[in-house]
């Protein structure tokens, strides 16, 4: 086996391997978007985040504008503290509200931002005031049963 033949084949092999890795990173993974974009951090407190995970998308008007970077717990107010990484090219007013929504019926949870009307924009490190917690299925069912029971009692009282 000539030395030059070996070198050529090894070169082909290594190039192919790197091409494979590049293919995976760019076409398969999400390297193309968001890795080098500038972001700023914004926090928000929620009474309940439901199943929200780190890296969950943050959407406004259905378009992904950022990702959840951290989920924490405030031991004084007993609220969840979620940190968002918002793409720097999107500026939101200070009174923007954040809701935790579910994509589809049983899909992953994401954060929906609804822009407010304030003229002052959010800066890095700001806290969002208006939040709506996630809808928790158990609470819904509990609420439904409670309502049902209340209707039943009203009905009985009504009949009396």
């Amino acid at each position, binding site marked *: *086996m000539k*030395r030059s033949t*070996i*070198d050529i*084949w*090894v070169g*082909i*092999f*290594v190039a*192919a*391997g*790197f*091409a*494979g*890795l590049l*293919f*995976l*990173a760019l*076409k*398969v*993974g*999400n*390297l*193309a*978007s968001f*890795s080098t974009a500038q972001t700023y951090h914004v926090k928000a407190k929620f009474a309940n985040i439901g*199943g929200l*995970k*780190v*890296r969950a998308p943050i959407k406004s008007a259905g378009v992904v504008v950022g990702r959840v970077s951290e*989920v924490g717990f405030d031991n004084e107010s007993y609220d969840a503290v979620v940190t968002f990484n918002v793409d720097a090219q999107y500026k939101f007013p200070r009174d923007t509200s954040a809701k935790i929504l579910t994509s589809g019926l049983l899909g992953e949870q994401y954060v929906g931002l609804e822009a407010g009307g304030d003229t002052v924009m959010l800066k890095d490190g700001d806290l969002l005031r208006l939040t709506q917690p996630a809808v928790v299925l158990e609470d819904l069912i509990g609420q439904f049963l409670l309502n049902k029971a209340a209707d039943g009692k009203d009905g009985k009282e009504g009949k009396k």
Partner: protein
Amino acid sequence: MSEPMPPAGPRHWVENLGHHITSKIWRLGFAARFFFYVLLHSGTALRRFGLTIREIYFAGVLSMIIILVSGLFVGMVLGLQGYDTLQRYGSGEALGVLVALSLVRELGPVVAGLLFASRAGSAITAEIGLMKATEQIAAMEMMAVDPIARVVAPRFWAGVISMPLLAALFSAMGIFGGYLIGVRLIGVDEGAFWSQMQASVDVRNDILNGVIKSVVFGVAVTWIAVFEGYDATPTAEGVSGATTRTVVTSSLAILALDFVLTALMFTGGNGQ
């Protein structure tokens, strides 16, 4: 001329088991020392990189065909089976996600590792074992050339370098195979296939972890291969036994390490 065997009672059995276990542990310790020795004496393999390149040819390039073909078939099977299950829940368009994540996180590193162990690992063991059996290793020592630096280390580094590249090729081919079946054959929407995949596969968490896994597997498989070869009894049966042990031990090591790494990397849903 054999003496009569002692009566095979429970004590005899327990003694045997204990002896077996202690000899395995002793061997493991020996293998660990050998590993560090190879690392320490890797200077030649890295300075005279031509030696390592030659071994990359024999370990990596010659494994390309089997890796590419297997990757293609595995991807195609994933496409078929995956679609069959997903479309029952109306999620046929998530096929891309299923194929990509399965390959990049698990099947790519693991199956490529198993194939590498049986093709290249056994070849390395046989080669080093035969060199030992035909006294080539001894001749090298006699000529004041360290055989571990000259013969073992280049093969070790060639394996470590080749594994991640082969795993990436396997995953890429597999995704292509899944694409062929899913989009071309079955008719899943091409746009949905790729966009959902891109939305769900994270470069840091999934792809990078897959690469880390393949590097770990590369180290494990090649270490076992060179050790078994170097430690083989210098006879025909010795070399064949060593080759078999390489394949078996490497395969078990890959699966066990895969479990450990998966548990470390992909715990919980929150990634916290």
